[in-house]
Structure formats: C-alpha cells, structure tokens
C-alpha cells in the first residue's frame, strides 16, 4: 500500500460518490428534464474520476493513455447525448415540470 494506491482509491471513492448522487437524482427528481441534469453531470464527472483513478493505479504508461482516451471520449460525447435526448423530448411535446403545479 503505497501513496499511488491511496491517491487512486481517493479518486475512485469520489467517482462512486458522484455515481451515487446521480442515481439518487435519477430516482428522486420529478420529470425527465431534471433527471437529465443528474445524468449529464454526475455521471460524466463520476466516470471521469473513476477512469483517472484507475489510470493512476495502472503501471504501464501506454494502457494509462488508452484509459485516459476513454475519459476524453466521454467528455466529447456526453453533452451531445444529453442535448440530443433533451431536444427529442422537447420536440415530442413533453412539458417541463413546474414548481407551482405541485
């Protein structure tokens, strides 16, 4: 158990925390748009932290670079997916949940 392991454990623990909040948000929030906030943000950062933690733990540099490429792909694709689903939802006429209605 050296310092590298502890750093990667901290990163992975942080990622798990964000995953956990993302899932809680997915279950608690009232409508699809608000749930998308939980998906688009917590999930992205959680995965980013997990991936960086694993890349730090890994010893071979080439594999670490490949693992970091996963993080780059996620950063590029995640907002696009969130935006596309939001647009499709809006086009199909689902109205956002308002505070006054409840």
């Amino acid at each position, binding site marked *: 158990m050296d310092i590298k392991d502890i750093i990667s454990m901290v990163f*992975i623990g942080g990622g798990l925390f964000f995953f956990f909040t993302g899932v809680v948000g997915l279950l608690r929030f009232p409508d699809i748009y608000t749930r998308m906030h939980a998906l688009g943000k917590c999930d992205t950062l959680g995965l980013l932290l997990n991936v960086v933690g694993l890349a730090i733990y890994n010893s071979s540099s080439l594999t670490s670079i490949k693992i970091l490429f996963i993080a780059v792909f996620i950063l590029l694709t995640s907002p696009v997916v969130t935006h596309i689903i939001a647009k*499709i939802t809006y086009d199909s006429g689902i109205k956002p949940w308002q505070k006054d209605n409840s």
Partner: protein
Amino acid sequence: MIDFFIFVGVLLCVLITFIFYRVFAGPTLFDRLISMGVIGTKTLVLLLLIGFIYKRPDMFVDISLVYTLLNFIGVLAITKYLRRYKTDGY
C-alpha cells in the same frame, strides 16, 4: 487492492439494481433510454475493474473503448428513428 476493486464492483452492481427501478417505472420512453445510458457507464467502469482484478488491464481497455463509442452510436441511432417517427413520449 483487489479486495477494494471487488468492493467497488459490488457497490456499482447495487447502484445498477436501483437504476432498474427507473427502467421499469419510468413514465416516458426517454426515461428508460437515459436509464440504460447510465447503466452503460456503470458497466464500462465494471469492465475496467474486472480487468484490474485479473491483472490484465491492457486487454480489457480495448473493449471499454468499444463500449464507450457504441453507447454513443446506439443512442444516435435510436434518436434518428424517433426524429422520423414522432412519439408523444410513450
């Protein structure tokens, strides 16, 4: 460290069980779609963790990369269908 990875993997599996509630209950199709997306990211991390548990991460990273891209392409294909045939959300 391997015990820690197994622990993280089990925690992720518990989280996936909770997301399945949204897949069953989600009122609209889009809820189910984003829930499956969230499950996809969890399985991606699980795959990397399995690679580290077996101490062969170099083989498993390639599959994770394919996972990442296919998650994206699958959502794109489904939304392309939904743009053609509009739904009222169900």
